[in-house]
């Protein structure tokens, strides 16, 4: 087993490189991904090594980026699209919902929509508006799409490759606030399947489900809770569509308590879905209602006050307190 330490940004870069080496039909397309290597440098050096035909600087039009990636998919290419920031995916929403999600079905399986839409998502980097959104629920609500979120460099490295290899369209959510955090990457073996959740920390009193940036926040909260004698199990959902419910059910049956943590606003969110599903499946185990610790129901605020919007360790602890408050 060869492991090496790298940032999530580098792990994505290496994962993309490996996918492109393996399969010449893998293309990258997006704004500024060529010479610049993308505003986050995720594609750094790839145009130099794979050429302008495979690493395509796109004119500035997201609907066209996704729409042409659909056409490339019909032609047999697998395009990894980079949306520069979460807030700029909406111009492509129509193509994603009406075409990417539906063409496989519409053609009775003839068209393979093997494309990956990379979405640097969530906040926490002190950016201006539209650069910190959490649009994952829109895609989770859309049949025909798959949605995953990485939270560690190792996952980033493997999940991007698994997404590219997968025949369904994948919305690939990258927690941009974690791009520069380092971790061990195993270059030989994937940690698990693309659509599997992972227990990041075991515990017995409360189950906390999180994804993307919030996994680390949840882990820190678990650490803090341990200090107060509360044993928290932290599950990284990893896949949001489909949700890997089995380990969550196992956990909730053990703990009887559920907290979901997300940066997105609460209403009709992934958190709502997890709570509704687990309530149905673990009704007799739950000793308290599942609670959601979420971004507030407001437009993402100016970043000087974003820390008060994004779930903090304190707010996660508060959520844990709430479920522990039930008998």
């Amino acid at each position, binding site marked *: 087993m060869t492991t090496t330490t790298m940032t999530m940004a580098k792990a994505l870069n290496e994962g993309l490189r490996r996918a492109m080496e393996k399969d010449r039909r893998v293309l990258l397309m997006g704004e500024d991904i060529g010479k610049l290597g993308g505003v986050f440098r995720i594609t750094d050096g790839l145009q130099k090594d794979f050429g302008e035909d495979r690493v395509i600087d796109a004119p500035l*039009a997201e609907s066209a980026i996704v*729409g042409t990636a659909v*056409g490339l*998919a*019909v*032609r*047999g290419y697998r395009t990894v699209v980079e949306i520069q920031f979460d807030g700029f995916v909406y111009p492509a929403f129509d193509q994603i919902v009406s075409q990417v999600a539906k063409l496989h079905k519409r053609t009775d399986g003839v068209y393979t929509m093997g494309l990956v839409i990379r979405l640097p998502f969530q906040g926490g980097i002190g950016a201006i508006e539209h650069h910190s959104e959490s649009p994952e629920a829109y895609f989770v609500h859309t049949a025909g799409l798959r949605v995953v979120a990485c939270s560690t460099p190792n996952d980033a490295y493997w999940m991007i490759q698994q997404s590219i290899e997968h025949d369904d369209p994948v919305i690939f959510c990258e927690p941009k606030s974690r791009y520069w955090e380092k971790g061990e990457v195993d270059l030989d073996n994937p940690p698990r399947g693309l659509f599997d959740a992972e227990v990041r920390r075991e515990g017995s009193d409360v189950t906390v489900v999180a994804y993307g940036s919030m996994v680390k926040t949840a882990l820190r909260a678990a650490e803090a809770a341990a200090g107060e004698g509360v044993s928290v199990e932290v599950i990284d959902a990893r896949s949001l569509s489909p949700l890997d419910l089995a380990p969550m059910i196992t956990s909730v049956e053990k703990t009887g308590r559920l907290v979901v943590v997300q940066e997105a606003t609460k209403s009709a969110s992934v958190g709502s879905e997890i709570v509704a599903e687990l309530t149905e499946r673990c009704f007799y185990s739950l000793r308290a209602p599942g609670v959601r610790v979420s971004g507030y129901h407001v437009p993402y605020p100016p970043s000087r006050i974003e820390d008060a919007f994004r779930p903090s360790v304190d707010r996660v602890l508060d959520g844990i307190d709430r479920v522990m408050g039930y008998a």
Partner: protein
Amino acid sequence: MIGEELIQLLTPEGQRIAHPEYESTLGGDEVFSFYRDMVIIRRLCNEATSLQRQGQLALWAPLQGQEAAQIGAGRALAPMDFTFPSYREHGIAWTRGVPPADMLRIFRATTTGGWDPQKYRHSVPTVVLGNQALHAVGYAMGVQRDGAEEAVMTFFGDGASSQGDVLESFVWAASFNAPIVFILQNNQWAISEPSSLQAKIPLYHRAHGFGFPGFRVDGNDVLAMYEVTKRALDNARAGGGPTLIEAYTYRMGAHTTSDDPTRYRIDAEVEMWKHRDPVERTKALLAREYKVKKAAFDEVASEAEELALQLREDVLAMDAPDPITMFDDVYADAHPLVNEGRREMIELGVSGPR
């Protein structure tokens, strides 16, 4: 002179007319075969309309009036070219070999597709206006990457040409010099809206603003449609980039069978366009210049009749699918929510043909 006039090679009376840049390369047999295509597709279209009136289809979008625009453009395609239609391109589908009954499946509401797009190299209909233009450009970018000598063609209407997706497809086609031909069928109406609402100047001018050639062709003149399209396709395959062809034509019927055109347009307009009928025009040419006899025309008519009968038979035999099929091909690979739904439907006993 590019783009400054309506390109026409055949007058409404069926007289040939000279054009400084284009001349018809078609022999009599070919013209006759174009005529045949037009007669057949019109007849099939009318059959579909009656099927709808009789409750056998949920909806139908007639192409009547646009036969020359579609047969002319469709016949110019090479077998390996790929086409991305909207919802009214029955004539194109015909030239690609799509079985007529398959064209009606979506309108019988038994599928949202209808045929194997890879087999006929003709994509399934796109209902969301303009979406397909971007797919076509993307596909063309794939053709370029494969180093293939193929062209791509896509279709949209005068109304759809206001959509961001169509306009972005122009930006991309120009930027990547994509091997693509855009066929804009300006049939004068987008449901109840006249094309003058979408543009105050001829629509083909748009191409020039994006840096590629655009032409306005008499869309009821199958000779002109064929020649202009053919040259544009050749040019695309040779690396010459995109072309926009505005087929200036008319939607003789309703927008769809749900529409009531008397609410927004006057009879006189329809009458005027009857005099420009694409089929009659070609027939006049064949009779005069190639001395085609009544018997030959009659033969086409009865062939069309037979195909219409066959179509009716096929459509009536088309059952609703088993509802359980809604869970097929949603994903290429298993998805728990799909499986859950399938299980529930089976338990509820809803499955089974209806």
